[in-house]
């Protein structure tokens, strides 16, 4: 089955082309085309998962093009990591598309929406199955493009188009880093292929310095795409796009690409100087706590979830930083499901309540039964309450952090866990409990609620798959070949600590928001100062940078006009005078031309004679 993996990626592309070429006529039917493609992809990826079950790895490749000595190959590398990602991406994409039928009903450019979504799914899938860095990089760019298209879906809105622009440019900065890393890698190894690079790195022929440089450059790309600290500003603004888009791209798949990249090139990180991993862990942890703090102050439901995603991604990066490769992947998978559920839930809340500001909502649980309960499950899971998946994956990361010995990061992550629980339940209590603010809020139609229910299942139970109860099956499954995972005894201390942090967070938010005992505003305001750190600081630095570059470019412009143009016009002038002088030569008197002709011929004859005969 594995050799047909490329079909999974190709089918959404076909859907994209079909919809593209019948853009005007297809209208609503575009949804069914896209869903059919992704559904078939899901079934196939499940098949691929089955074949890869035994831990076997399939690689296929054909030469794509040969340019001189350089031959570029294109192919597939299906290993447990890829198989899992395939399933994750296809399921989430399928459910989002079904959900969008309801959410996007009545949109003018619905067919274009579905075209863009299927193109995005195709590029994400090809990114996942890529067997060499170049193919990965190409799909990486495609994914960036699709996110730009989908964020800017309502381009009539000025804010949406500028948000899309901002997202594209900031991820572009990251991509430049990734590209440089690629170039550096290629210069040294002359190949992009994963296995080939792995052998070269294993053979140690590359110096630690270059490896660190490559690793850090790759991390820069990942930071851009997965919205880590300096390059995270675009994600909150990306909420301008339709909510299903945020659910699919900015929760589950695209942002995970960064983590996937680091995971895929983990052997470089390991072989590189230990500082590389420290950097990853540090930035990851810092992003996590920063995003968590800001999330607390947000009043827009989607912004809260956006910052929560950034913080969770920080969690995964921190896990990778401390060497927890399997923990990071496990958390990535579980996070994909419950974050998608949260976003879709938020979508149906917005759909029902008609506003995004959480303080204009209230008591929606009574109005929107299904959304309410599924939202609760997801919130519990992300907070990390015992039986749910969030607990297990977060606990896994915390044990990894503890095991690797960086206690500062452990402490930071625990605080972040507490904050996560706090702002999630603040969100839940404000939105779903308390007095009902608007009476005519109504439950979303079935086509939206069913995906919520379906997503609720993995959000809740997937964690068990990796939990010690089932013998850490999941972690063994996706462990790096060779790094066998010793079935560590379940670290009860860590479990207790994380649950304690979570419960504290929930209780604290219950006191503040559930019963509205203490006036919430005083506490929140004190935290709002943190938000200053984010918005003004980063944006200001970027704006100053721009002003400087503007100055330089103006100077250059002036130089160019005066000096270079001066030369060009000068030369033009000289030629002009010459031509006027010579044009007097053709006086229209034909026989003078004939005379010149004869003289020229004579000179030529003499020249040829002397050259040839002598």
């Amino acid at each position, binding site marked *: 089955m594995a050799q047909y993996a490329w079909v999974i990626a190709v089918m959404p592309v076909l859907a994209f082309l079909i919809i593209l070429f019948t853009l005007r006529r297809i209208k609503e039917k575009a949804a069914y085309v896209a869903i059919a493609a992704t559904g078939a992809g899901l079934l196939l990826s499940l098949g691929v998962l089955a074949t890869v079950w035994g831990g076997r790895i399939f690689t296929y490749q054909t030469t794509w093009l040969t340019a001189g000595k350089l031959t570029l190959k294109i192919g597939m590398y299906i290993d447990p990591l890829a198989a899992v990602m395939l399933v994750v991406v296809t399921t989430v994409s399928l459910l989002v598309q079904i959900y969008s039928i309801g959410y996007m009903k009545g949109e003018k450019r619905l067919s274009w929406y579905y075209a863009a979504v299927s193109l995005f799914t195709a590029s994400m899938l090809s990114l996942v199955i890529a067997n060499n860095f170049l193919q990965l990089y190409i799909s990486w760019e495609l994914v960036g493009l699709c996110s730009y298209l989908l964020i800017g879906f309502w381009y009539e809105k000025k804010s949406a188009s500028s948000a899309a622009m901002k997202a594209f440019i900031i991820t572009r900065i990251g991509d430049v880093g990734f590209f440089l890393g690629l170039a550096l890698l290629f210069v040294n190894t002359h190949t992009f292929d994963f296995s080939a690079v792995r052998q070269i790195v294993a053979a140690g022929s590359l110096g630690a310095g270059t490896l660190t440089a490559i690793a850090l450059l790759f991390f820069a790309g990942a930071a851009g795409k997965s919205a880590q600290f300096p390059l995270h500003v675009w994600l909150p603004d990306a909420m301008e796009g339709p909510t299903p888009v945020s659910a699919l791209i900015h929760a589950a798949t695209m942002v995970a690409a960064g983590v996937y990249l680091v995971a895929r090139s983990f052997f470089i990180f390991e072989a590189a100087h230990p500082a590389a991993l420290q950097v990853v862990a540090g930035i990851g942890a810092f992003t996590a706590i920063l995003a968590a703090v800001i999330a607390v102050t947000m009043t827009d439901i989607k912004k809260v979830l956006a910052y929560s995603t950034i913080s969770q991604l920080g969690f995964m990066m921190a896990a990778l930083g401390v060497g927890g490769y399997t923990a990071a992947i496990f958390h990535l998978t579980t996070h994909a499901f419950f974050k998608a559920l949260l976003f879709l839930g938020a979508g149906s809340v917005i759909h029902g309540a008609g506003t995004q500001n959480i303080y204009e909502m209230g008591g929606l649980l009574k109005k929107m039964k299904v959304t309410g309960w599924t939202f609760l499950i997801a919130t519990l899971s992300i907070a990390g309450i015992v039986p749910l998946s969030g607990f297990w994956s977060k606990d896994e990361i915390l044990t990894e952090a503890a095991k690797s010995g960086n206690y500062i990061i452990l402490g930071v992550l625990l605080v972040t866990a507490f904050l996560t629980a706090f702002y999630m339940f603040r969100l839940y209590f404000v939105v779903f409990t308390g007095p009902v603010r608007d009476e005519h809020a109504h439950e979303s139609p079935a086509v939206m609620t069913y995906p919520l229910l379906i997503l609720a299942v993995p959000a809740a139970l997937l964690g068990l798959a990796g939990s010690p109860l089932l013998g850490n099956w999941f972690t063994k499954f996706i462990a790096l070949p060779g790094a066998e995972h010793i079935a560590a005894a379940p670290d009860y201390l860590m479990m207790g600590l994380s649950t304690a942090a979570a419960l504290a967070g929930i209780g604290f938010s219950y006191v503040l928001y559930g019963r509205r005992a203490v006036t919430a505003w005083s506490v929140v305001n004190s935290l709002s100062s943190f938000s200053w750190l984010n918005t003004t600081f980063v944006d200001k630095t970027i704006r100053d940078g721009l002003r400087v570059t503007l100055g330089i470019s103006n100077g250059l412009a002036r130089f160019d006009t005066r000096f270079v143009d001066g030369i060009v016009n000068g030369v033009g002038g000289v030629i002009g005078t010459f031509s006027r002088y010579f*044009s007097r030569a*053709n*006086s*229209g*008197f*034909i*026989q003078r031309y*004939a005379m010149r002709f*004869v003289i020229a011929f004579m000179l030529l004859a003499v020249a040829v004679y002397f050259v040839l005969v002598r």
Partner: protein
Amino acid sequence: MVPLQYYIIMSAILFTIGIYGVLARRNAILVLLSVEIMFNAVNINFMAFSAYITPATMVGQIYTIFAVASGAAEIGIGLAIILLIYRGRETVNVDEVNMLKW
């Protein structure tokens, strides 16, 4: 036997006279006549070479035949053009016809 050099010199002189005619004559028809002279100078050379150097195959002679035929067509057209110019500008003197003036 008349040595070949004589023929060469004679046709060279004839050719030069033709050149002078082309460059110096005012009347377009006489310019054409001098072109004819140049043509014949070339033909004489060809015939001389054909007779002296390749008597068996007579390639020069065949070339001259075709040259004469095409030369005739050429002067036909040349004169027709001169007639046209005359009808347009009432003059046949080459220096008065300077449409090519810059």
